């Protein structure tokens, strides 16, 4: 039995999938704002949301599978929370009742497991009734499959069988085990056997031939005898106890997985509610295949900025379909970094099946998203600044694959413009030839200009806007790279217009 609410065909295994550059992404894209909003103070939801968002889906179909589930969640918030609560309850009852499980005695393991399973059976029953009553309100394939599974697997007759065994396994009538003679004629291959149901009539019992049987008793005072007897009993039930404890674990991990998977959806519900609160729009993006190059949106904003500001923020549009390179130049503090972050956050959210902060959004899925931002100067003085950033670039190159997306924010700026441009040219041309999609915020005019001359067909050139009076609009629009980045404006703003 699998919940499979995050992936159509498998469990969620965060250890396997979380992006190797998680720390960079968190820092460069300000993702903690996103996760904090999703978690609403719940550490578990925080952790799951982070892991899910950072283990991107690579297949548009898988993205749509989750999108549908999220849509169902947004419509049926209360029911989803109820299922989550049931999963939680099961985990807590296990914690209370699992005593004995870690014992060295199979009988304690057995009894502990029985207690937990008895509690689990009750919760499974409630889960099934919920499925029966509420499944019609859900449309997604994921939930449909989940509810169908509950109804099919947890029928009344099945639950009756489970209860019967849980009672039998208390062994009120003694434990029956078969054995053979092993080394030195010591008993071995102890196998727990099912006692025959004695449903014979009184007459039958009198006339049926009783098999030859020898019985011996352990005297009350014989403590070592009593110990030996219970060890023999333990040998007999050992494997059954193991099977039962494992079944308990399996059901437990079913509940754990259910809780984990739902935690992400609870996070999505929380986030959505917050966006509604601050009147920021959201849409479900259209994911395109890995091999194509799509990147088109309207009304995209940096969702993390909106969340931390608590209001809607500047929106931008882009049409970069069939392009590999987007170069963003222009005014200082003109919204370039925010624009870049918005792209990164939207891509991550799309590839986790979520809605994104835009009016419309379509891009191809990528198999890795990497950020290369300026870092604080190396405090240990071990390496120079260019050395440090190129080292990070090299680390990225180690991990990058042809369908990755790279977000470069003022890379190669820690040297003079001519050298920086040359390094940029060499690095980027190689990466682009490999098929990697690059968004590059840069002040390297020489690089930007040359690229503009040579790659106009393959690239999109954007410029942070500036009104004639020098006032920033924070709008990023198409435009060729210009010589100045309007530092003068900034200077004037800060130091006053005229001396």
């Amino acid at each position, binding site marked *: 039995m699998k919940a499979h609410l995050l992936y159509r065909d498998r469990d969620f295994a965060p250890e396997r999938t979380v992006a190797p550059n998680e720390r960079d992404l968190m820092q460069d894209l300000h993702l903690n704002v996103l996760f904090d909003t999703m978690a609403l103070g719940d550490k578990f939801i925080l952790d799951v949301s982070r892991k899910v968002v950072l283990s991107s889906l690579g297949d548009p179909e898988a993205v749509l599978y989750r999108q549908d589930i999220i849509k169902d969640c947004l419509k049926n918030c209360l029911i989803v929370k109820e299922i989550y609560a049931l999963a939680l309850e099961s985990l807590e009852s296990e914690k209370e009742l699992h005593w004995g499980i870690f014992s*060295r005695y199979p009988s304690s393991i057995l009894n502990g497991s029985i207690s937990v399973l008895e509690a689990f059976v009750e919760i499974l029953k409630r889960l099934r009734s919920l499925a029966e009553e509420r499944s019609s309100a859900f449309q997604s394939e994921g939930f449909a499959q989940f509810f169908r599974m509950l109804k099919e697997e947890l029928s009344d007759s099945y639950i009756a069988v489970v209860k019967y065994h849980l009672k039998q396994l208390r062994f009120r009538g003694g*434990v029956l085990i078969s054995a*053979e003679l092993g*080394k*030195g004629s010591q008993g071995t291959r102890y196998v727990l*056997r099912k006692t025959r149901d004695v449903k014979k009539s009184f007459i039958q019992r009198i006339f049926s031939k009783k098999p030859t049987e020898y019985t*011996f008793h352990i005297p009350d005072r014989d403590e070592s005898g009593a110990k030996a007897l219970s060890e023999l009993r333990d040998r007999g039930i050992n494997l059954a106890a193991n*099977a039962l404890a494992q079944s308990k674990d399996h059901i437990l991990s079913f509940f754990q997985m259910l809780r984990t998977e739902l935690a992400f959806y609870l996070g999505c519900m929380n986030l959505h509610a917050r966006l509604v609160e601050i009147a920021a729009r959201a849409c479900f993006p259209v994911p395109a295949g890995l091999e194509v190059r799509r990147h088109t949106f309207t009304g995209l904003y940096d969702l993390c900025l909106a969340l931390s500001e608590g209001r809607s923020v500047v929106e931008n549009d882009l049409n970069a379909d069939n392009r590999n390179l987007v170069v963003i130049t222009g005014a200082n503090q003109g919204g370039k970094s925010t624009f870049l972050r918005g792209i990164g956050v939207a891509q991550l959210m799309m590839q986790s099946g979520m809605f994104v902060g835009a009016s419309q959004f379509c891009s191809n899925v990528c198999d890795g998203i990497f950020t290369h931002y300026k870092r604080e100067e190396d405090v240990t003085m071990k390496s120079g600044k260019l050395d440090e950033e190129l080292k990070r670039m090299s680390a990225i190159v180690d991990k990058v694959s042809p369908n990755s997306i790279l977000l470069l924010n003022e890379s190669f700026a820690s040297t003079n413009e001519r050298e920086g441009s040359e390094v940029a040219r060499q690095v980027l041309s190689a990466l682009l030839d490999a098929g990697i999609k690059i968004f590059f915020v840069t002040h390297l005019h020489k690089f930007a200009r040359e690229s503009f001359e040579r790659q106009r067909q393959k690239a999109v050139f954007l410029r942070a806007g500036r009104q004639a009076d020098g006032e920033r609009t924070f709008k990023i629009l198409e435009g060729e790279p210009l010589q100045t980045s309007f530092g003068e404006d900034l200077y004037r703003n800060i130091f006053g217009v005229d001396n």
Partner: protein
Amino acid sequence: MTTATAEMPAFFRDLNLDQIVIVITAAKDEYNLKPYFHAPLKNVDAIMYRHEVMRDLEKKTLFESMNSFARKMREMREHLVRAKKLYYKHQRESWFLDAVELYCGAVQSLSEDLDQADLDSRGLLALRDYVQRYVQSDVFSSLVAETGNLKHDLATVQYCLLIKYGSISVRRYDSETDYRAEVEATFEKFKQAAAKDYAIKFSASEQMNHVEAQALDCVAELYPDVFLHLGAYCDSRTGYLDETIATFDREIQFYVSFLEFIAELKHQGLDFCYPKVTDSSKEVYDFDCFDLALAHKLYVEGSQVVCNDFHLMGNERIIVVSGPNQGGKTTFARAFGQLHYLASLGCPVPGRKAQLFLCDRLFTHFEKAETVQNGRGKLQDDLMRFHEILKAATSRSIIIMNEMFSSTTLRDALFLGKRIMERIMDLDILCVCVTFIDELSCLSEKTVSVVSTIVPEDPALRTYKIVRKPADGLAYALSIAEKHRLTSERLRERLRG
């Protein structure tokens, strides 16, 4: 093979043969193999006899057969030991039964393996004949048959225990179903990935407790024929072990242990060969030989020993080893002694190709720490020991001398050394003499001078190569001078510059 109870010969420590034997016999205490290694053979044919067996055993399949036979016999002995320690009758008898079963199996596969083996040695051919006859004998076949029947009967015993509080009922098994499987099937649908193992590992105690024993008694009541038969079997089969087989089991380990020991060194690329052993010629040689004890020690430490050659021709009898300290002089002398001793045991020896002399006695004269008790000075002690040796030695003896007379003046040492060497030359004895006295290396046509060498560029580095050349006493000093740019050439250069 003569079942020797020989004590360790006097020279064992000096030649580090004691270390070698300890390693060889380390895992084989039960066979008491040391006496074999303490008893050199006295004639060439006996040595050839062992060489043949060794060569046969170098065939991998046969060697494996011997090992497998040994393993089974060892297991059999362990069974007997345990059986003796057990308290409950049925259990004791079952262990005895298993011991006999192991024995039968061991002998049967030994016989099959020998039949298929391609044997050349007199020793193993004789063994094959014996084992064939034994396996076909009535004694053995009835033992096999009865053992097999009993094992089969015991294996068919199946019973059930109904365990309640304070009592156990025992009855025959009556096809009751496996309840665990049913429980597992019930919960099958919840199965997730790999699960933690909650099964408790019960220690397999060989000593039954009294509850198990009582249960077993009840089982014996349920199957009386089987257990009565077992009891009778144990009474009648106590002397099942054939004496010749038992002797073979021990003796073959002499060969196996030695071959196992040298296998790892061979694997490292070191050569071993069957020397031509002679008692008629004193021409001896061995190429790429080495100190076996050192080779093993270095093998354990992960490095490899340096090989050396020697060849005494015509009238040459005495190898005089000089040269820098720690250059491998003593090691070389030891190797010479070891080779001759190992050859006299009929073992393969270190080296690519060898001819060695079968001596009547081997003597060593190594430096001893000064002993206060005997009240003599060290020099006196040295001389007394020489006296003993020369009194006992014959022209067929071998003497290994290491740094004699180091505790006196050079003049005294030279004088005494010459006297001793003269006596040795008179006796025409094969000898290795490690000395710092260069003059001893050119006393007569009987002496051969060999020198330990160094790397000229870095005198601190040892090559451990012993080469045949005059002892000039200069090579070492010169290379040190070179290092400090004090050779006449370098000094001139420097003074010019």
